[in-house]
């Protein structure tokens, strides 16, 4: 009988600990499928964040390092400078990448560090129980913005792709979403491109993945997908923000 669907080799057998309907699981799978398809699992070294994906080191079959909160791009830089021929990636949440780790993110991008960053934007601090993130939308209720994010006192969200695409360092910056089958397919294509760029030595690539956190949004998985579509897509437009392949044409 022909096999039509199976677990990617780049994922271990450890069961995910993610909540039902959480898109972290989908994104792990996409990354693993890409590692499989590019044949680089044995050559890859991943860096897990502090956030709900902290245990990613147990899920990916490649060598892994667990970084301190926000420091994954610095850790990845250290790894890549030792093994320039290896495929080095980080997998980070929005609190990790765009708050505590902003400096590491911006400077690894500015250096054009030849690494791949998978960035999960779920507009919330998932792991710590749903506090306001740098990406929390104006008006969004969280544990630490209980009256809705008031931009006058709590500031404005950061659009990471837009910000990083102003730099000369990155080779590829794109925003994708995990809300529908077509978008998931596009997300995978973007993730693949971000890894391919590294393999081809083109430099820093980042894919921002609009994701859901049904648990801390207080929504069912289906309602969460709807919220992503209704509230997040208009604020965080999908698309490719930087691609040196197009610039060079």
């Amino acid at each position, binding site marked *: 009988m022909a096999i039509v669907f199976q677990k990617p080799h780049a994922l*271990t057998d450890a069961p995910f600990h993610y909540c039902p309907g959480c898109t972290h699981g989908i994104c792990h799978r996409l990354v693993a499928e890409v590692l499989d398809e590019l044949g680089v*699992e*044995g*050559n*890859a*070294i991943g*860096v897990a964040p502090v956030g709900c994906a*902290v245990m990613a*080191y*147990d899920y*990916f*079959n*490649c*060598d*892994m*390092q*667990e*970084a*301190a909160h926000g*420091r994954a791009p*610095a*850790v*990845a*830089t*250290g*790894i*890549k*400078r*030792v*093994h320039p021929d*290896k495929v080095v990636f980080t997998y980070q949440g929005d609190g990790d990448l765009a708050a505590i780790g902003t*400096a*590491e993110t*911006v*400077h690894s991008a500015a250096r054009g560090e030849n690494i791949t960053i998978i960035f999960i934007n779920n507009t919330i601090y998932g792991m710590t129980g749903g506090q306001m993130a740098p990406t929390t939308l104006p008006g969004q209720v969280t544990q630490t913005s209980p009256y809705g994010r008031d931009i006058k006192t709590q500031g404005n969200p950061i659009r990471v792709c837009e910000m990083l695409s102003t730099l000369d360092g990155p080779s590829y910056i794109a925003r994708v979403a995990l809300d529908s089958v077509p978008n998931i397919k596009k997300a995978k294509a973007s993730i693949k491109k971000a890894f391919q760029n590294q393999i081809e030595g083109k430099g820093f690539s980042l894919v921002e993945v609009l994701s859901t956190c049904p648990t801390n949004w207080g929504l069912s998985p289906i309602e969460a997908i709807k919220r992503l579509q209704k509230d997040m897509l208009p604020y965080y437009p999908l698309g490719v923000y930087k691609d040196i392949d197009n610039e060079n044409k």
Partner: protein
Amino acid sequence: MSEKVLMKGNEAIGEAAIRSGCRHFFGYPITPQTELSAYMAKKMPKIGGVFLQAESEVAAINMVYGAAGAGARAMTSSSSPGISLKSEGISYIAGADLPCVIVDIVRGGPGLGGIQPAQSDYFQVTKGGGHGDYHLIVFAPNSVQEIVSLTADAFNKSEEYRVPAMILGDGTLGQMMEPVDFDSVPEPKKADKSWATTGTGLKREHNIINSLYLSPEALEKTIIERQKRYDIIKEKEQRYEAHDIEDADIVVTAYGTTSRVVESAVKTLRSEGLKVGVIRPITLWPFPDKIFAEAAKTAKAFLSVEMSMGQMVEDVKIAVNGKAPVYFFGRTGGIIPTPQEIIEEVRKIAGGLK
């Protein structure tokens, strides 16, 4: 025998590190360690090594984490305020059992403090700094030549025990020029690094560099296992230099730059007929408590001289364990004690002894 060259302490650290096989240096500018970064920036690109100026000390130490976890001999250097920032990363490095060498050319604190030599970070480097039950192996050279041999030892011991090591100096030591040779740097030892993340090649289970253990039992187990290594280090790696302690009434102790001032004071005191001996700790952690315990069998008093308000003196007291009074003299904020001040302090103590 190789020729002696005239070198600054900070540069000698760099050259010794390179000769010890270090090819990855991650830094962030701060006075007074500047010459070390500058040396690495000049040398590394010429020998296929990496010098990277990070965006902060936080980033630099995390680059060290990544590089050390990937199997390299990695180094970073800073001075007090920068070491405070690195403390997060140092704790993670200790928790993940990664070997590396951290250089701390101490300056006066707290806060921005000053840029002159100080020893006011003894607590920070020997008692923690970052969070959790951990230690660094801390080497405190007092000459440029000793910087060379201890830098080599720092890499080797760090890998042997999988414990991060530190070279602790100050601006005087970093900037003083002395003739050195590099004969004391052995061929870099090949340590077993089968734990490093180098890519599985699909030939082995994946390696994980990590300090997270959500189960308290599992976490406690790793801490106890590490403590056993610390115990071996405390047993086997205590280093010091001592002289004239057999007949000493008063034992003066100091490390690093201060120990050189103490030596000149003690010379004068002995010429006056006072029975004064010296213990100079070379490792600050592990603290050389055995020699203090030994000296306490006969000495009538101890004096710890430091460029601080009294930090190492606490370890001296623990080691002497009530067998004799332990006095303290220190200058701080970037001021080096003078031989005369130390002489007067010792005379005062001697006057009080029956």
